[in-house]
């Protein structure tokens, strides 16, 4: 048991370091986006939708530095640019090494409407001004994948205008987290702040499930680094089958 505690602590730090690097560079990207937007706007007082294209180099730089996330960009709430629906400027990686822009439907009357203002990664970040992570979730009408979204606040001239962040497919995150979890001599999982499993090291902890009640001799450990509410849970291995 005490031996497992050491492994859990080491694993938590390894996972925390990975997230710390992601969030550090998302903050860098958010600052670059702010510069890009200011340059694109020029002498005008208001920001227009077409100005948003200017952030592409910042997102490309982020995706070039981090191989695991599949897309990056910024999201502005309603009334920030010249329409009522908000704006999503999101660039996804393509196999050829370039990126292409995600086309979303932000019109509420359309059946394919992408209703992002209610998502945690938007609502929570703009209301608290702090970084957050959401997922795993099925990003219907958006990326249409099973993903996690990591977000930091985005400001312009000292005013919070939205969020900047990246999407990671669950299957790609697994390649980073699984080798770390497999060093723990027990059933272990990385879980979200709502106790939803992100990656588990055995069939006992399947992604998407809730952890539920754990035996008394289980360990819960905060993932250090950015305050995202992520935890590592570990429990003596149970050979179900």
């Amino acid at each position, binding site marked *: 048991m005490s031996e497992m505690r050491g*492994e859990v602590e080491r694993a938590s730090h390894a996972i925390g370091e990975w997230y710390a690097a992601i969030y550090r560079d998302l903050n860098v990207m958010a600052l670059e986006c702010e510069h890009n937007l200011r340059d694109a706007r020029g002498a005008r007082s208001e920001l227009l939708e077409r100005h948003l294209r200017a952030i592409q180099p910042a997102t490309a730089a982020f995706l070039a530095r981090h191989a695991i996330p599949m897309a990056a960009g910024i999201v502005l709430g309603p009334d920030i640019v010249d329409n009522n629906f908000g704006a999503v400027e999101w660039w996804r990686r*393509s*196999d*050829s090494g*370039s990126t*292409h822009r995600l*086309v979303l*439907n932000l019109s509420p009357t359309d059946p394919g409407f992408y209703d992002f203002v209610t998502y945690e990664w938007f609502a929570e970040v703009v209301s608290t001004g702090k970084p957050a992570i959401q997922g*795993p979730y099925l990003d219907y009408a958006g990326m249409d994948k*099973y993903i996690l979204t990591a977000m930091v606040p985005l400001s312009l001239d000292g005013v919070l205008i939205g969020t900047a962040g990246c999407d990671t497919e*669950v*299957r790609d995150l*697994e390649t980073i987290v*699984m*080798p770390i979890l*497999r*060093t723990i*001599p027990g059933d272990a999982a990385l879980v979200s702040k709502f106790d939803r499993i992100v*990656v*588990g*090291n*055995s*069939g*006992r902890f*399947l*992604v*998407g*499930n809730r952890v539920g009640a754990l035996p008394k001799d289980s360990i819960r450990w905060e993932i250090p680094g950015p305050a995202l509410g992520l935890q590592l849970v570990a429990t003596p291995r149970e050979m*179900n*089958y």
Partner: protein
Amino acid sequence: MKRGSVGDLSGVHSQVFRPLPDVLRAEAIVARLSTAISLGLLRRGEQLPVENQLTTMFGVATATVRDALQELRDQGIIETRRGRSGGTFIVGYPRTNGEALRQRLLRLSMAELRDMEDEHLATALAAAQLVIERAFPHDIDRLERIARTMGEATTTESCLRADSRFQAELAVLSQSERLLATQMRLLTESIEIVWTVLTVESDKQWTMNDHLVIVTALREGNLAAAQRAIREHISRDFYRLVAARLDTLYPIGPTHE
């Protein structure tokens, strides 16, 4: 081209949407027929439709069907006889390509495996409900006979066929053509992979016992018990798949520092 449609996307997409070459279509036909035979959907001795029927059914060129049939003939799976009682018949079972199946398992992520398990559960649980509502006692007798065929199985391949036959019959008894189609697609995707990690010696017995528990619950009209048994059975299969995949991709070393 309308903005936002696939047509205005670059590079990768034009690759994805390029026409399929004939050789891939022929391979797809070989794979489809081989799997159907492995799963016991097409039986030994059965006659295949004639060439131009196959052409229409698969929606491919005659030459493509010919290539596919030649490949199956070379593998000893089908045989074409001339004369009055001639035709193309199924005469053998495909050799299971264990390595290819293992590679397929390794390529599935945890999320994809769990999702596959979810769809299996959804399909089987719904089938059980409909079976209880619709099946007659003699239907359940039939399901039980099929479940017991696993008792005679001596090879992984014959276990696989018995397992597949049982799961297909569950959907058959639901009276839903759509549920059966979903079940067949699921079996085609997964059951051969499942039996790469199960063995006759250690797994045949509990598989058959689980099936018989399901049969009994259905016979008694006990939906909760039937669904619990189905759930446990499917979870066990997938627990084993996850373990096999992780042990291969992320082996746990004998010691940790």
